């Protein structure tokens, strides 16, 4: 299912045949990747296998190791480690929830096929004390299970301890097939401005001028760029940058831009670049023409009826390596995975119980934890990304929103971080003064309003705010109302969306007007008052529910003349809150509406807020629940059939809940 999509320019025929032989000998788990060299040379490839910590994978690995005496998993220490991991001996699989095995150029004899093994270290949200504890546990497992012998275990502990606590180690790799002491660490979320000082902290012996041309451009084009450093036993002058984008290439317009960048830099042949762009696909067995392997077909029909398997092949990430001599090269990683069902991920585990804390403490604890999640979720270019549309993930709009949420707190750390996001957004301001959903989308009123509201909460930014405000006013409709897209805006999303009737997207949208009303109150407050429904809410165009728009309208209508409108909205919110299907996102905004009422309602809002705090995930987030709509451009009102796009990274929901907790807990100045 992978080969038909892999062009001959990427893998030579002999390498292909050799790869089939090796792949047939590894544990029968349907998750592999091919590591392809993108330079002009043809042929050499590496094979990777991804093993999850699921009981099924562990059972298959255990059975494989027990039945296969001469399997290509290296020597006795590696086998013993894998057996212990499969059995979860000493909780090793609980701590190391998956692992990667990597066979470099598997064209050697079987005895030489010892793979490298990569183990996860810190979760993305684990920093400082939590991160140091996690590193200790990984070092303990390596030491206890004898991976690489006592001297290497000691070295691992030393390396993990030498990485500053504010950095995050995503993986540690043991290159046992190369040299007994070769170890790699992957560091995540290092900003371009910080990398030089990070390397100097390691006494990195390489040439800074050799990596500098590549790191910033990769960060600008990817969701994440991991920095890989080798130790053998001391830090080596080589450096690697692994650049990944979350979305499938068909849904993420930055993938072709990233490949084109590698080609432009001479790191990827043009033919290979074109071939890479065509690899990715998802194959579903209920679609016509799917050629599923006979063994998978039989297994699928015998599986429980809730299993409807599918298969994905995709460009996973690319890597630019700079050698000790300063020579750069690039690789691409094609992954192929079998999945057993379509269902989404289960909800993340909840955070430690908050019961026993006072309400104030519970809210303060949840707010601090949420801020930690949001800071860890920020990309290296100082922007946040969430939601996925045909034109990719949003960064400008989402960053304006999250930056606004974080700028509400008074801590110096938060303020410093939001200042960096503000600087990144200022570089994105369009010539017309606006911002958009992301860089490939045209500027719109909603994104611009969030960025302006964020900028107003941080330091002075010269002409950016008046310029943006002027852009906002261009969305006022002659007959009253406020549109998301101005008449002169060309809505094309770099030609992804065909030219069709888009009058719906240029019509009056109460949810956008509610957001912009505090920025241009003289232009919009009268309109907002007239748009409230008899039930008390404001109808959204871009959202499945009205809680968000109504809360924004209530905030904008803050004066005495808005009192009656607020009262009707509070009554509406109280009725909505009895619906137990409300997401955390909806409840956060409904609670804020309630909080605009009298003492009884404020007390109720506070109690509901504590309940919300108790539902926080272990990583500081809340389950994604911001249901954005993608109406047809010609539709003037939303409809039941509109596509719903969830904030799949839960960033938008978490920022919403954070704002609710800080407002209701009175934490805005204390956080």
């Amino acid at each position, binding site marked *: 299912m992978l080969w038909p999509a892999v062009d001959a320019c990427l893998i030579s025929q002999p390498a292909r045949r050799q790869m089939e032989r090796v792949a047939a000998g590894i544990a029968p788990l349907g998750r592999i990747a091919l590591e392809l060299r993108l330079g002009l040379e043809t042929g050499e490839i590496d094979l990777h296998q991804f093993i999850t910590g699921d009981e099924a994978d562990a059972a298959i690995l255990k059975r494989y190791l027990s039945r296969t005496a001469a399997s290509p998993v290296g020597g006795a220490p590696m086998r013993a480690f894998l057996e212990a991991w499969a059995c979860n001996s000493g909780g090793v699989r609980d701590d190391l929830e998956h692992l990667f095995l990597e066979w470099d150029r598997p064209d050697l004899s079987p005895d030489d096929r010892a793979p490298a093994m990569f183990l996860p270290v810190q979760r993305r949200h684990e920093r400082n004390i939590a991160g140091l504890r996690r590193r200790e546990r990984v070092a303990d497992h390596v030491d206890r299970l004898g991976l690489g012998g006592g001297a290497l275990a000691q070295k691992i502990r030393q390396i993990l301890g030498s990485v500053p606590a504010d950095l995050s180690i995503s993986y540690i790799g043991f290159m046992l097939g190369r040299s007994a002491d070769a170890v790699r660490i992957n560091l995540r979320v290092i900003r371009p401005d910080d990398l030089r000082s990070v390397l100097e902290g390691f006494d990195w012996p390489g040439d800074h001028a050799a990596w500098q041309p590549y790191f910033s451009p990769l960060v600008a084009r990817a969701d994440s760029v991991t920095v890989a450093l080798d130790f053998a036993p001391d830090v080596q002058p080589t450096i690697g940058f692994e650049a990944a984008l979350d979305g499938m290439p068909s849904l993420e317009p930055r993938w072709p831009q990233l490949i084109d960048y590698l080609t432009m830099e001479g790191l990827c042949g043009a033919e290979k670049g074109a071939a890479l762009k065509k690899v990715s696909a998802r194959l*579903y*067995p*209920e*679609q*016509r023409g*799917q*050629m*599923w*392997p*006979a*063994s*998978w*077909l*039989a297994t*699928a*029909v*015998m599986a429980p*009826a*809730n*299993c*409807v*398997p599918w298969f994905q092949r995709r460009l996973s990430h690319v890597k630019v390596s700079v050698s000790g001599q300063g020579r750069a090269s690039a690789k691409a990683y094609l992954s192929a995975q079998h999945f057993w069902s*379509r269902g989404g991920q289960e909800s993340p585990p909840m955070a430690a119980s908050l019961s026993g804390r006072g309400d104030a403490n519970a809210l303060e604890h949840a707010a601090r934890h949420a801020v930690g999640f949001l800071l860890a979720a920020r990309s290296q270019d100082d922007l946040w990304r969430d939601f996925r549309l045909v034109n990719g993930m949003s960064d400008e709009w989402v960053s304006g929103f999250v930056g606004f949420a974080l700028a509400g707190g008074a801590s110096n750390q938060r303020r410093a971080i939001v200042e960096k996001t503000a600087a990144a957004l200022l570089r994105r301001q369009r010539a017309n003064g606006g911002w958009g959903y992301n860089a490939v989308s045209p500027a719109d009123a909603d994104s611009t309003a969030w960025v302006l509201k964020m900028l107003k909460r941080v330091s002075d930014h010269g002409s950016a705010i008046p310029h943006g405000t002027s852009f906002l006013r261009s969305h006022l409709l002659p007959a009253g109302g406020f549109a998301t897209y101005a008449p002169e805006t060309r809505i094309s999303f770099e030609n992804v969306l065909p030219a069709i009737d888009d009058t719906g997207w240029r019509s009056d949208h109460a949810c956008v007007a509610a957001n912009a009303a505090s920025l241009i109150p003289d232009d919009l407050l009268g309109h907002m008052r007239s748009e409230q429904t008899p039930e008390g809410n404001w109808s959204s165009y871009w959202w499945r529910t009205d809680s968000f728009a109504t809360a924004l309208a209530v905030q904008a209508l803050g004066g005495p003349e808005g009192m009656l409108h607020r009262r009707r909205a509070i009554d509406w919110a109280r009725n909505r809150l009895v619906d137990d299907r409300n997401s955390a996102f909806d409840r956060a905004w409904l609670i804020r509406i309630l909080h605009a009422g009298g003492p009884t309602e404020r007390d109720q809002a506070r109690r509901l807020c504590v309940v919300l705090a108790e539902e926080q995930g272990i990583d500081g987030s809340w389950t994604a629940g911001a249901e954005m709509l993608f109406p047809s451009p010609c539709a003037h009102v939303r409809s039941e059939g509109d596509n719903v796009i969830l904030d799949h990274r839960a960033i938008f929901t978490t920022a919403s809940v954070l704002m609710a907790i800080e407002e209701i807990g009175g934490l805005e100045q204390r956080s």
Partner: protein
Amino acid sequence: MSDKARYDVQLGIEFLVDLDLTGMQHGALPDVPDYSALAREAEKNGFAVSPAALQEAFRLLMQARMLGPRQSPRV
């Protein structure tokens, strides 16, 4: 689809929904889209179906699962 082909696929579905491979040798079904071994197994069990009919039967079974637990595969 002709009546004969439709009948073949229906047979394929009947064979697959009660699939029992306990008598088959481990590894007898290949890791490639070659359904001839499965067709031979079907024939042994009284279902004379072609490999192509088995492929279509599998597609319909998976489609029915996608539609929900109470949906039967429709040929």
